[in-house]
């Protein structure tokens, strides 16, 4: 199982002990988020609207690609991939 660093945005850092990133093992984005949530139980609350459904304003990128263009939470990840959580509300 690859260990992957997930970048955490400011708004979520209090939920993960003020870290800028968290490294966890998993084969898909969903698994990575699940593992982070196992370690930090407050983490998922802001991310998920329902089980397996991301909040409307959460973007997750794998190697700079929005996972909506990939396979959403089932998007496969491998060692060395960049995974980042970025709030959607910006720009315009």
């Amino acid at each position: 199982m690859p260990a992957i660093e997930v970048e955490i945005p400011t708004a979520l850092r209090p939920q993960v002990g003020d870290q800028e990133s968290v490294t966890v093992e998993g084969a898909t984005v969903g698994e990575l988020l699940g593992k982070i949530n196992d370690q930090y139980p407050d983490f998922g609350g802001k991310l998920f609207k329902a089980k397996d459904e991301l909040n409307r304003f959460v973007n997750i990128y794998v190697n700079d690609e929005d996972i909506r263009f990939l396979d959403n939470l089932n998007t496969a990840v491998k060692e060395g991939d960049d995974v980042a959580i970025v709030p959607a509300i910006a720009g315009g």
Partner: protein
Amino acid sequence: MTSYTKSLRCKECGEEYPLEPRTVCDHDFGPVEVTYDYAAMQGKVTRASIEAGPRSLWRYRDLLPIAAEPQAGFNSGWTPLIKADRLAKKLGVRELYIKDDSASYPSYSYKDRVVSVALTKAIEFGFNTVGCASTGNLAHSVAAHAATAGLEAFVLVPHDIEDGKIVGARVFGPNLIKIQGNYDDVNRLCSQIADKYGWAIVNVNLRPYYTEGAKTHGYEIAEQLGWQLPRHTVVPVAGGTILPKVWKAYQEFITLGLVDDNKPAMYGAQAAGCNPITKAIEDGEELFRPQKPDTIAKSIAIGNPADGYYVMKVIRESGGWSASATDPQIIDAMKLLARTEGIFTEPAGGTTLACAITLIEAGRIPRDEPICVCITGNGLKCVEALDNQFDEAPVIPAKIKDFAAVVESIQNKTPQPVTA
């Protein structure tokens, strides 16, 4: 002055925050919006109080989220509202208006409105450095207003935007950085920059204030129409800031009793090569699917609109609709607007007019009710869009006989297709 602002409130969960630099709600990443005490405005914010204000967007300062005096954009806003009779005749509609922010001061796009408010807030909050993610117009505006205010500016743009916008921004001396990617990539980076550097990124951590500036486009339409609302308003949709804010402006004026509620309908306009909102509206989807943009209308090439959800909500609640325009339709509409009303807009404006035409022809917008088309940018900043659109101009000696020959050849040609 009296400030009627109350708080920042999450549009999703309702959580309230003080008026501070803030990008999103801490609980669910929902957007936060400024709230006002409308009850306290009753009888104080009136047609007369507004009419007594400056001929700039600051005549609406009571409805903007500033704590003290304006610090930027002293001459921004109050752009022309044009009764477009020649264009109306061409389109076969009774009453048509163009709100013309191609004439916005100082940077020739509606972005001067949002930047005026954002930079005032940046100064209020004590920032020395401001920045933005931009498709060009915002970079131009932030750079200009930052220069006036004496602030350091970092403006980030996609690497392939038009030279006119790059030069238009650089002349003011900002740090301009081209990003290898599209606007959505730039935007993502700016979210990270706001986190890391603690700067005022106008459309990230000052976004709740910035977006409020867009309301002034709507206030002006209503006031310039003689304190009434157009029945149908067509607005370009990129990040999705302006459409919901024009709607909010209309609703605020209704709440304050400044205009009658004629049930104004809002319509979105997008390029066919970047139309996530139009597609979702047409398909009856609850959520839009982000796209990779591919269109000549670069200033509105935003595939993952931050406020897309709210654009859809307003369009649906108001009884409006949304349309798309292909690149050739966009160019035709740019020429049509120029040749009927003397307005040279950028491809985003061509998109908006082309979509208005589509909506009229489809019967979505009735021909006998007042329509306003919102033009938000200037064509001179992106002349590349019209490359190869015109024949070579004749080059002749300075002699009358050569000129006569040219006139003769012009008169022998069929008239240009686009005339009213």
